[in-house]
């Protein structure tokens, strides 16, 4: 089961009179692209911008990031979300690398939205500051949730998924500059050399804490809240089967771009057949009731045992009560003799003195830690803001506040900000990008 991703390394993106890709330059006909976005009647206002690493631009509220790609067989890029359900494990996909399409609210933010600074000292906090980004700033007719803290952000999220596919259409028939091949061999059809290596599974705990539809991560369009842990071909994750949701403080979230490029999957593929035998992904979730958490842990453990996994990496897309799912899952795997490494962020508080996870277990012996959600971050004003910065203080954004006895409001009249790391767009990068860790001071 082979997935080929043909890469086009984008060096620059400009607006012009056509949609084209030539010599590393992606040209976008802005008006036509906006017309495409406006085909959805729920989009009431739309602007398109291009921002590059080092630009002194602040983006807020950022709701999603997607890598522009197209499948050469004409199937939808995000089956079950942007089109009908089709398989995603194999085939050929073409990708515009080094760039992303970002969804930014024109006015309204919420609990789950985040901030990106393209330049200055704030740029080190997000992965997307290092990419060239096509930014869709949009407003929608979803007035029912404008004043709600929790937002589904459906229209604008769908818009950037579709826009990503629309933009990549210009490379559909071009020859890629290089190609990544991900060949996932059926687990019973591997040669003895590979079978003799330590077998590893990657357990992804998707954000799925909302009971109502429309907020959680989707797997082939299916709400991860309604899912039991299941075995997946890693290619499916790299190829659009998983779409990011709209809940959870932003620094803990994984965007759709993160799933498309999942660094742990790619590193495990590199090691596959050399140092380990990559058995695949166990797709799990994060739940709101203890019984559900325990059930998922049992499923993961039994899948691991049945597959014969010697070792596992478990990563959680969240913090707070999801830590209970994370800890329970690792403890269950360790009980079954599966040597496990966990990947998470921590909540040690602004003072760094709180208990790092809400539950702890001595069975967690090998953890990679990617940041402190409540670290205070203060940043100077930016000459350009796309979106509406006031939303950081006004709309119940996790990590922002309208007032604080000691710190004042998150957004100051001069445009400087003070916020918690919580509000950095997909900032803790537990998906695998994170160059941050946690140390004792």
């Amino acid at each position, binding site marked *: 089961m082979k997935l080929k991703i043909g890469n086009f390394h984008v060096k620059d993106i400009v607006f012009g009179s056509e949609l084209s890709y030539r010599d590393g330059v992606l040209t976008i006909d802005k008006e036509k692209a906006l017309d495409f976005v406006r085909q959805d009647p729920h989009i009431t206002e739309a602007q398109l911008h291009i921002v590059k690493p080092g630009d002194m631009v602040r983006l807020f509220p950022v709701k999603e990031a997607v890598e522009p790609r197209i499948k050469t067989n004409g199937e939808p890029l995000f089956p079950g979300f942007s089109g009908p359900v089709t398989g995603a494990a194999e085939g050929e996909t073409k990708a515009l690398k080094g760039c992303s399409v970002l969804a930014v609210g024109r006015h309204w933010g919420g609990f789950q939205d985040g901030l990106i600074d393209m330049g200055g000292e704030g740029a080190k906090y997000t992965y997307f500051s290092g990419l060239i980004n096509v930014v869709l700033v949009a407003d929608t007719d979803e007035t029912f949730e404008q004043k709600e803290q929790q937002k589904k952000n459906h229209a604008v999220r769908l818009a950037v998924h579709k826009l990503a596919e629309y933009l990549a259409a210009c490379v559909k028939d071009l020859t890629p500059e290089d190609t990544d091949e991900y060949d996932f061999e059926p687990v019973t059809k591997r040669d003895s050399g590979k079978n003799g290596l330590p077998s590893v599974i990657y357990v992804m705990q998707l954000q799925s804490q909302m*009971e109502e539809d429309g907020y959680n991560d989707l797997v082939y369009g299916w709400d991860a809240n309604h899912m039991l842990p299941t075995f997946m071909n890693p290619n499916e994750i790299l190829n659009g089967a998983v779409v990011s949701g709209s809940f959870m403080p932003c620094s803990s979230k994984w965007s759709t771009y993160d799933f498309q490029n999942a660094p742990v999957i790619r590193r495990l593929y590199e090691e596959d057949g050399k140092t380990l035998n990559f058995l695949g992904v166990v797709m799990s979730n994060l739940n*709101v*009731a*203890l019984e559900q*958490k325990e059930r998922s842990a049992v499923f993961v453990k039994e899948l691991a045992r049945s597959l014969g996994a010697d070792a596992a990496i478990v990563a959680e897309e969240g913090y707070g*009560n999801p830590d*209970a799912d994370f*800890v*329970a899952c690792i403890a269950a795997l360790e009980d079954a003799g599966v040597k496990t490494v966990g990947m998470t962020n921590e909540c040690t508080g602004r003072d760094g003195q709180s*208990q790092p996870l*809400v*539950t*702890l*277990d001595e069975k967690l012996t090998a953890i990679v830690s990617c940041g402190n959600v409540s670290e205070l971050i203060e940043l100077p004003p930016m000459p350009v803001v796309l979106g509406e910065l006031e939303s950081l203080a006004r709309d119940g954004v996790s990590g922002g506040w309208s007032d604080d006895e000691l710190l004042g409001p998150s957004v100051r009249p001069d445009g400087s900000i003070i916020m918690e790391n919580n509000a950095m767009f997909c900032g803790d990068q537990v998906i695998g990008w994170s160059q941050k860790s946690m140390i004792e001071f």
Partner: protein
Amino acid sequence: MVKEIERAGLPVVQMCNLLPVAKTTGANRIVPTISIPYPLGDPKTSREEQNKLRYHRVGVALSALTSDIQEQTVFKVDI
């Protein structure tokens, strides 16, 4: 919070769903609830059922306050 209340000598019972969290944070008397967003009444069930469950579990919590315990205890509920 529960620890600070207990430290002050007030017997306290924690009603929560995430038993591992309560155990980690050091609550001594724990009564389980049914979920995080609705600890004491599942909106998918009838008003009467919710009331019955809530009355029962709060009753268990009251018993917990009168129970002499030697170690961290999770009290059993029937519904």
